[in-house]
């Protein structure tokens, strides 16, 4: 009984550590509104991540949550450039990149990024999200004009 209980605990712990890399604290395109406790949790979690692409994605999220979108974009760019074949992280990174460009007011760059996502992931949820971003960009451009 004790042995079974220990196994269950171990299994639960393993599931938790595996699931941590896919934490729901970070959305598909990165979450810009994290509470302080969530932020702290993410920073602690960052220490445990070994996958280089995942580390970059999380770091970018943290930087974004701290209100430094430019730094976040620089970090994310490393992922996009050096880990373009990381299927798990590339799509969401591209979406986050587009969102960060919007945040920085670089609407043309945001539109280019979102357009490329639309083309590359046509017919998928990722492409739909990119379409939403493009609509947002269009509105912002109109308001600037």
């Amino acid at each position, binding site marked *: 009984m004790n042995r079974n209980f220990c196994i269950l605990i171990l299994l639960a712990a393993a599931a938790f550590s595996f699931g941590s890399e896919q934490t729901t604290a970070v959305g598909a395109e990165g979450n810009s509104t994290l509470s302080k406790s969530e932020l702290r949790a993410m920073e602690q979690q960052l220490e445990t991540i070994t996958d280089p692409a995942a580390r970059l994605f999380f770091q970018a999220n943290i930087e974004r949550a701290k209100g430094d979108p430019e730094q976040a*974009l*620089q970090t994310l*760019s490393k992922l996009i*450039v050096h880990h373009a*074949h990381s299927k798990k992280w590339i799509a969401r990174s591209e979406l986050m*990149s587009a969102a960060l460009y919007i945040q920085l007011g670089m609407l043309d*760059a945001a539109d280019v990024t979102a357009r490329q996502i639309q*083309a*590359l992931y*046509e017919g998928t949820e990722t492409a739909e999200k990119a379409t939403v971003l493009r609509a947002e960009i269009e509105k912002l451009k109109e308001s600037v004009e």
Partner: protein
Amino acid sequence: MRLRRNILRLIGGSMISILCVASPAFAQEDLAELSASGLLNEAAKNLAVENYGAAIPYLTRYLDLMENTEDDRVVALKQVVRLKLGKISAYLDDSFSAVNYLKQYTQTLPCYRPREAWKLLALNLYESGQVELCIAAATNALSRPLPKGLPNQSKAVKTEELSKDEMGGFTARQIKRIEEEAAKAGEDLSQGISGDVPDAEPDYTVEELVLLKMTLAEAYSQLENWEASIDPYEFVIENASAEDRRGYAIMQMVNSLIELEQFDEAKKFIVELYHTNARYDIRVNMALMSAAAALYAEAEYDSSLMLYRMVLPRSNLVAYQEDQINALRRSAGLPRVDIQISTNETGRIETLFGNKSSDLSQTVSEFSEGLPPKPIALVEMEESVGVLLALPSYEEDVLFRTGLLFARAGRPWEAVTALESVADRDPDGERGQEAFAEFLMILVDPLEKYALAEKRGKQFLSTYVAGLGPRRVAHALTRSYQKQELWKEIKKLLPVIEQFASSTDSTVLQYECELYYMQAIADMVLLNYPSARAGFERVLIDYPDSHQQESATYWHAMAQLFLKNHKEAFDEFESYVATWPNGSWLPSAAFHSGVCLFGMERYDEAHVRFTQVIEAWPNASIYSDACSMRGDLLASKGMLNEAQRDYEEAIATARLPRQATYAVFQMTALFDLEERYDEILVAVNAYLDRYGDEADVAKAAFWIGKTKIAQGRIVEAVEAYHEAIVKYGGNIRQDGVDLILSELVNVSGRLLENDEREALKKRLRTSLQESDNVTLQLRLRVLLASMEGTVIELGKQLISELDELEQAPPPVLSVICDASFEQEDYSRAAEILNIFQTRYEDSDFMRAALKLRGFGLFSAGEYDEALKVASETQALYGTDPSAVWAQIMKGRIELQKEEFDAARKTFRAVLSVREWRGEPYAEATYYLGQVEEKSGDPRKAFGWYQRVYFQYKGYANGYWAAEAYLTSARCLEQLGLKNDQRNTFRAMLFDKYVNQLPQAEEAKTALGAAEVLEITTLLLQGTQTNWVVTLDAEGAE
């Protein structure tokens, strides 16, 4: 007979088939000794045990033996043999032989397996490089050719109709069994050889069609018939089950579409490729890079970027291939391996496959362990890994191009990441430095990270001085400074540029030329025209026929113009027009040559030139300027209506606010001459409406105020002026404010009552206290001092207050000049005049600077230079009272040079100008005396001197009269008229205008104390005298 023959054929063939299946394999016998059936038998035996190569000699010998046999059966058998040989050759990768046999088969009857034959023929023609024939064969195969028998070929045998002999001892049942066995046997190489008519040929399977279509498509691609390759590639993409084949077909389709410039279609397939594992195919990776480069060249950056991002680094490809290899090895019963790379004794890279369980430094041959042989697919895969690893490195190139593409596509942060990475990995190499320069450019534009770009750029330049890299980095920094309008920072790069190691490389020289050109442009913007001229000269001389030859020629001429070297500038503009009759600066060069003519006072030619420009280039940017200039010329000739038309045209066609500004205010000055005040208001208000914040609002306020004054609305005008000064006076470039200052001084002195004037001064003092803008404060101080008559005192204060004069507006500079003039301090005269000439050349306040400079040069004995300044003053201000000094200075210079006739003429001219009545007359008359005295005619001189103290003693506080008394006394002494000399001195002391001046001391000394006392006593008693000395003969005229 025929029937019998057919039965015998059937039975004989079947027997051979049975015999072939049943008979054991024998050793090879001498081919020449074997009969035809023996040959077929031996061949069949070898085929049955899959010893295909061994069967070939038998089969070829059979064909040779039966070459001339026309028997139908034999002919049919020969065809079977040919097809067999074709298939065996194909299997053994002997494409040429396969083609040979298959061709014969398809060209000979009977041909019962045309589809199979054409298919194999097409494949082997491709393998042997006979691409056009391959296409024909594949097309034939795909047309589903039907089997063709010999003419009059009989159909199936009915055994019940055969005789006993024809049945050959077999029963009907036995013959039927033989037929069934023959029919059941499949079509493979191991099958026996029979000349019987086979069953209908089945249609191609999907895999066969895929293979055929792929071959066809590849053949078309090799012939660069891209259009034709599309359909077959599409078929493969839609039908291939193997992912790698499908992926490869997609890649090839992309290539064809790129060649056909159907980039949108290509993009669709690129996206499809992105989502397959075909990227792990080495061929696909190589093809990706080629296609990406082609798209880049066509400026299809989006698509090109997608392709480059798909290219996998070698390590990823190797890892994937390793997995695939091990999967194959597992299924083949072989141990798994790690892929290792080593270099053999010749330095060649070899790929080795060491067993995972063994020591990594050793490799073990699988065969020595008695392991099963490797499947062909595995061998091919291992070979392809070897090829991959032997390839030169491509990852850096891909990363660099990806960086460039991110930049072109408009994703700057990704671009800098990629390019910085390339640069960091190879900082000393050409590629690394190129990447660094690109990285820097993106930091500048569009990211505007100027500080970072400057820091990194300077670090680079402190390390590297040779090659293209430093030039490109310097170029990026220059661009950065240009964007920020930091022209002085650009100039700081010049010594760095001059330290670059020299090169003969054409690209390096092009960049270098551009750097020096940009330096010269910075000099122009900084108004440093001598340096700008030298800079453009450097470009023209050191980099002949460069890409900036034309522009440098034009701008060199412009620098000459700004330096007022009108003759040289004119010649250069004319030379430009002749050299570049279609040049981009042509209209501007033609216009500015007109400006040069204007500067050289060749007004008629200038008029002609401006008219040519107006007629030739109505849409050019300088059209408005040409209209204004011609308007000025017309106005100077009194053709005011024509001038107005030109100004109106200039205003209507102005592309820049400054063009409209000039024309509007020239026109208002014209209206002012004729007191057309309503039209002034209309023109100025229209100008303000059109240009808003870009208008010269201060100048507009000046004219509106002037109009109000003319209309008697003094208080309103004064208030508007005050408001304009406070609002715009903080901007040093608002020269309209300076006009208001002068006008306000004028109006307040003439038209305001005392209390109004004091109230105005009070408001101005309040504005002064409330302002923290230095320029506005200075302007207000000058205004107040002008109103209070304390300009000289203010000037003296400002001389000590202001070390730097660049923030001082023109009125302030003028006050400084006046104060300096009074103190005879000419130390900053050149500097101040230069500021006016480079920044405020149209300012009215430049008069004081010209005067200070002129006197400074004169006092230093630099008469030629002084004469230039005087001439310039007269050119600008004509007979304005403020410019009379220039005329008198001219005369004094001529006097110094003993050019007495010229000097006489110059001084006499003063006396003919009504505007110069007053002190200038006294001074000029005095100098006329000087002329006569120095030319040796004291009698004439005396006459002029006498006129001075007779007619002009009331001017200049009697200064010239006092001087004239002394010089006339000197003349009388020279003439030996001592008594008249004494009388002159006595007259001087009796003259109340001069007797208190310092010059009177000389008279007192000459007369002595007793006589001075006598005169003083008489003056106190109210005695007046009329001492007049008259000389005979010629006197003053």
